[in-house]
């Protein structure tokens, strides 16, 4: 029986890894494992999409294809901790139709409770899953990969409750192959959609999120009670809006200024749901509070800058100027305070990521913490650190190899491995032209 299974498995993996060898060894590289010490002359052995071994003196199996990697630094594949990569650009959902029975208090008819049930959940698509929307042909996948990203936490982004994210490997392979974990969280915004539709204000959105969260708790209770003794009980209504929230292991909330971060930390504590904040530029002001809260922060690598069309005669407030000056010092402040944080590309083009990262390092962030924020910390925040984020035996073979150091802007990214498959970066093409790329699995 056993040999048969082995044969079947081999056949299956051959199908997935067409033309790939049994094992690949990166030899003689500087290996930044993140979870352990840096190996100055290390070898990483990959097999069947996983890391089989890593060390300075490991015996290479006979079937291993060896890549000599002297002068190359190998890091765990970079993770973009918040992204829409691979997801279609969908228009914002239309505001709910204003029916006489809906938000207004119509003098006629029975009094309807407001905002209850899916039909009264404005700008809410909690049930939409990034994993289901995935488009492996999205050109941004290739661009991200070329910048050293092997994974991304991708979330639908429209509405107040936008939907459930997925942790993706950026292989551009089949949808199902790209998903490492799903759902990994619920993406919420505090966006308002005009004065005429509830919620039409920031406080309205916050109150709405609070109500949906409470409804989710109540729904859970009611459904459980009904399931245990259905006979003689009123049946609770199915509500996909709260179902979507309940199956999301964490709630992502936006917060950029110190006031917003403080506000969302208190809000998250009140909701009693695991939360992650994104934005975080002014966290340098309250790094200790962030650390104490234990709530992780996703920091937007698109550092604030003066708007291109800003009126040069319009004076800016000291607060605005300070934020622009000091935002890149936020990661250093968080490192010092012992807060949990990871990076996301935000509006930064994939090729400018290292430049943005350098500003954080210039502002005092240690290189080790910078690498960790782009790898293991992001994996930990999304609960996938048992699979990705560091170079350890058993983890998914996601790696990035840089000629020199990741922190040298000019150092070339040689190749990345995703699920043990090697990809070479696309050369930077002039606008309009698309560069050719190495097909997955190809080894020169």
């Amino acid at each position, binding site marked *: 029986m056993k040999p048969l299974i082995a044969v079947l498995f081999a056949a299956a993996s051959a199908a997935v890894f067409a033309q790939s060898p049994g094992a690949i060894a990166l030899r003689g590289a500087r290996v930044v494992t993140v979870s352990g010490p840096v190996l100055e002359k290390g070898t990483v052995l990959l097999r069947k999409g996983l890391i089989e071994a890593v060390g300075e003196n490991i015996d290479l199996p006979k079937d291993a294809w060896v890549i000599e990697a002297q002068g190359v630094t190998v890091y765990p594949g970079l993770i973009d901790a918040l992204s829409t990569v691979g997801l279609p650009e969908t228009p914002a959902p239309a505001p709910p139709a*204003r029916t006489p029975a809906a*938000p*207004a*208090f*119509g*003098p006629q008819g029975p*009094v309807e*409770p*407001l905002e*209850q049930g899916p039909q009264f959940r404005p700008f809410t698509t909690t049930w939409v899953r990034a994993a289901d929307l995935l488009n492996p042909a999205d050109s941004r996948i290739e661009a991200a990969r070329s910048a050293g990203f092997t994974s991304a936490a991708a979330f639908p982004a429209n509405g107040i409750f936008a939907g459930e994210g997925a942790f993706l490997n950026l292989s551009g392979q089949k949808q199902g192959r790209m998903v490492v974990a799903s759902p990994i969280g619920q993406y919420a915004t505090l966006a308002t959609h005009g*004065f*005429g*539709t*509830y*919620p*039409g*204000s*920031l*406080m*309205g959105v*916050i*109150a*709405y999120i*609070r*109500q949906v969260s*409470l*409804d989710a708790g*109540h729904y859970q*209770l*009611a459904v459980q*009670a009904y399931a245990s003794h259905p006979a003689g009980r009123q049946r609770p209504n199915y509500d996909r809006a709260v179902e979507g929230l309940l199956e999301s292991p964490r709630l992502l909330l936006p917060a950029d*200024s*110190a*006031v917003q971060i*403080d*506000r969302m930390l*208190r*809000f998250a504590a009140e909701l009693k749901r695991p939360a992650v904040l994104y934005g975080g530029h002014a966290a340098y002001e*309250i790094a200790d509070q962030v650390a104490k809260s234990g709530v992780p922060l996703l920091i937007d690598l698109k550092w604030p*800058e*003066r708007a291109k069309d800003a009126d040069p005669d319009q004076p*800016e407030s*000291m*607060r605005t*100027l*300070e934020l*622009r*000056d000091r935002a890149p010092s936020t990661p250093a402040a968080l490192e010092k305070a012992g807060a949990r944080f990871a990076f996301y590309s935000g509006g930064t083009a994939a090729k400018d990521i290292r430049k943005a990262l350098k500003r954080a390092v210039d502002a005092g962030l240690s290189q080790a913490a910078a690498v960790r924020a782009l790898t293991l910390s992001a994996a930990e925040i999304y609960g996938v650190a048992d699979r990705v984020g560091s170079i350890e035996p058993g983890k998914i073979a996601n790696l990035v190899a840089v000629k020199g150091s990741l922190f040298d802007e000019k150092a070339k990214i040689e190749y990345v491995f995703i699920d043990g498959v090697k990809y070479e970066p696309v050369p930077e093409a002039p606008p309009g032209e698309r560069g050719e790329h190495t097909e997955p699995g190809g080894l020169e």
Partner: protein
Amino acid sequence: MKRTVAEAFACRGEVRFAELSILFLLALPLFAGPATVIQNATILTITKGTFHGSILIRDGKIVEAGEKVLTPEGARVIDASGQYVMPGIIDCHSHIAADSINEGAVAVSSMVGIEDVLNSEDPDIYRALAGGVTTANILHGSANPIGGKCMVLKMRWGKDVPGMIFEGAPPGIKFALGENVKRAGSPGGGFGATPGLRYPATRMGVEDVIREAFLRARAYQKEWRDYQAQVDRHESAVPPRRDLQLEPLVEVLEGKRYVHAHCYRADEILMLLRVADDFGFQIRTLQHVLEGYKVAKEIAAHGTGASTFSDWWAYKAEAYEAIPYNAAMMVRAGVLVSVNSDSAELMRHLNTEAAKAMKYGGLNETEALSLVTINPAKQMGIDRRVGSIEPGKDADLAIFDKHPLSNYAKVTKVFIDGDLYFDRDKDLEERPGKALRKKALEDKLKAQEKKEKKKPEQPEKRGEDPGGPQ
């Protein structure tokens, strides 16, 4: 009549602060911190007369105020010779320090609250301080008949949001009547008008919305009471769904949340008082209440306070029948009256707003200053803590260089909880340095921007270097 109203207000406060006061008395000898003494000032206590003397502050509280106060050893002494000390000004109607004000898309927005959107970095807080204001009632806007929950703040500039909140102040909610509210239901109604039109469009509709909301609140209250009864009988039951819109209205019905109602016309004022009577709750204050002088007796009889403008009117049809005698006439009729700002600018000179009630209506100095100190404190249920200079109260004090009822008076120092939050001399002194720091930062960022812009051209420029001719 006036006494009865005042007593009614005082009694409510007493219950809330009884515990706090006891705690304070117990804590005093244990945690006696450094003392501050303000000396040689004219002290306008509001409730205990005016005299020349000193105030002893310790642990954020006023310990003693009198003509002869012993200065403890090591006390910080502030010489206020020729100056005037009054209780920190209290504004019963403000919209500063919040990132959103109106949730106008629904007629009943009691699910929203100012607490969720407070912004402790709003510079209007500091500007209010510079006008002697130490406490303000931050209200939801007037877009709908039943608005959002409000929040009482102390102007503790530099503190975070939780640090600004007036701890223990009774919760409140904003109601609104009249034009602003019904405008959203009128075709082409201007500000706040919604494309789909929102009920109500008339004053009749406003009353209906409020009544219907409270009928729903009663039903919701009953739902929870029934559930509680089931629990008490040890029956298994699923608790009702929490409804954040109706919860604050149940609190109003149970007297646990104050209603601050924006209104103008006499007829709608009487309407609201009738609705409140029917449902058995009290309107804590009528806000604006520009026609209050017409129905002052009725307002007083309900034990309802009035918070009005000194002389701001005619900005819309319902604000035409206003007179500057309004505050004084209501005071004489036995109404508990305050003068508010509703404006970040007006907020900076509420002392002179109060003074206008002396010219129009002949209030005396203490009565006028009460309009912006002890009276709003009573209206907000915080008079056990603030609103006058009395031993045991919070050391929230404003020092003016001249009599605060004078047009020429300027605030020199403001204390909250005994801490100095505004110092005019220090502010003026720091301005040049701040301007320099800002200029330096601007230059630094401009230089950075320039450098960023230049970068792409670098290769060409390198070619032009003298060291590398073509």
